[in-house]
């Protein structure tokens, strides 16, 4: 490794060992390496959430770009009034909600897509590229998948957000409430309603 390579490596190790507040402060002062490290701490979750909510890798990519660019531009205004995760997810969820609303207006997201093999469920197409040969996934019937997808899409945007962030991202209800600008109790009620709708829709399958 040349000297510059060693320096970069050293910087990465340095940032990796720092706590989040120090990383944020360094990034606020314009340290690019610190900003990238901060992005890497959360970007997989952000991309997963956007991909699940929007069921489109392209839209997820766009949300990722816009969210982290907004973080980059506004990081100087971050005052540690809430956790960085809450602040970031507030941006991400607002972007996703906007995208879902726009999609609803344009009705551009049909549940099925016409393919050479006839109409196919959008969700099944997304999975085809990545599912691999996981036996558990293969066992899951197409009907259950379809039912899950339609039930998720039938949730209100807020129920959907709460459910996705709690179930898939493992965020605490308190943090979810803060992210969505509401209380923990309200987030809890959204989770109850979402779970109840799921139970009703999937009751006969599980």
């Amino acid at each position, binding site marked *: 490794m040349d000297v510059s390579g060693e320096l970069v490596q050293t910087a990465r190790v340095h940032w990796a060992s720092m706590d989040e507040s120090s990383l944020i402060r360094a990034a606020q002062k314009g340290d690019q390496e610190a900003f990238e490290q901060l992005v890497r701490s959360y970007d997989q979750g952000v991309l*997963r959430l956007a991909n699940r909510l929007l069921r489109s890798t392209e839209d997820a*990519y766009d949300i990722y*770009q816009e969210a982290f660019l907004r973080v*980059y531009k506004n990081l100087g205004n971050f005052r540690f009034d809430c956790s960085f995760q809450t602040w970031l997810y507030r941006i991400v969820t607002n972007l996703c909600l906007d995208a879902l609303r726009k999609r609803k207006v344009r009705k551009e997201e049909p549940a099925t897509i016409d393919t050479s093999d006839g109409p196919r469920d959008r969700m099944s197409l997304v999975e085809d590229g990545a599912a691999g040969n996981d036996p558990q996934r293969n066992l*899951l019937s197409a009907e259950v998948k379809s039912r899950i997808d339609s039930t998720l899409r039938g949730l209100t945007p807020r129920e959907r957000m709460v459910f996705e962030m709690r179930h898939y991202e493992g965020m605490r209800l308190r943090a979810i409430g803060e992210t969505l600008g509401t209380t923990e109790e309200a987030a809890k009620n959204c989770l109850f309603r979402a779970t109840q709708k799921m*139970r009703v829709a999937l009751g006969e399958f599980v």
Partner: protein
Amino acid sequence: MSITCDWIQRNLPLYVYGELKLDEEERAQAHLDSCPECQGALDKLTAMNQALDSAAPEMPEHLLASARRGLRERVSAVREVAAESSLWSRAIAWLGGPGMIWKPAGALALVALAFYGGRMTERGPVSVAAPGSAAAATRVRFVEADPSGRGVRISLDETRQRLVKGSLEDPSIRQLLLTAARDANDPGIRAESVEMLCSRSGESEIRDALLYAVEHDANAGVRTKALGGLKAFSKDKQTRQVLTRVLLKDSNSGVRTQAIDVLTQTPSQDMVAPLQELMRREDNDYVRMRTQRVLSQMNASPGIF
């Protein structure tokens, strides 16, 4: 307080997600151990959650890497613009001299100042504070002894600041912005000017400036802003020709992606060949994916045969 079956079944989601208070969780556990009906409800909920996990779409492997690359490019473009803008802020402060306080006078004033400042700095001035002068900056042209034998004579070139205010309705303001969008040495000024001009892209002179910027500006941030102003012209022949060239030659994947978006607002068979060519030479996974999708929607093959 004893826990009822109703309470358990209502709060099972909180139990499985570990969101109950510690004492509630302990009592719930005790109840579940002794109540087959509630245990059955828990098993059903667990099975449902497993089904949900299995049905979740997974991300294509390349997506994260592609998103990180795209972000790096976009941040880099923003930094470039910001660095140049900062340079100009310092230049403006220097032009103002000590004691000069610039109050927010709107972006138009900034554009005008930078424009005149740009003209001045091109000549590489030597700045001095000329006594009794309201000039923003002064360049000493020559110095000589006064023929009277007393004192000196100093010849100065002075550049004056002028604050220009006005709306885009005003042709002289538009002209200033058009010049700044094309001629200024500073991407920050170009980006600001292009962004303002975008709101008047219906005028052919302004559209020409945007087309020039999107194809020739050295800064990706400026090109991106210009593209934003051309969205409404996806049917315009000249716009399509320029954007097709941008699609094939722009070095920034974000710009290429936006060009695809604008062009495909009005799908047309004339796009097939350029898109196939793009598929052939494109090395960015995300741009390839989007191009492939557009071709598929147009019932065209991704390759050239």
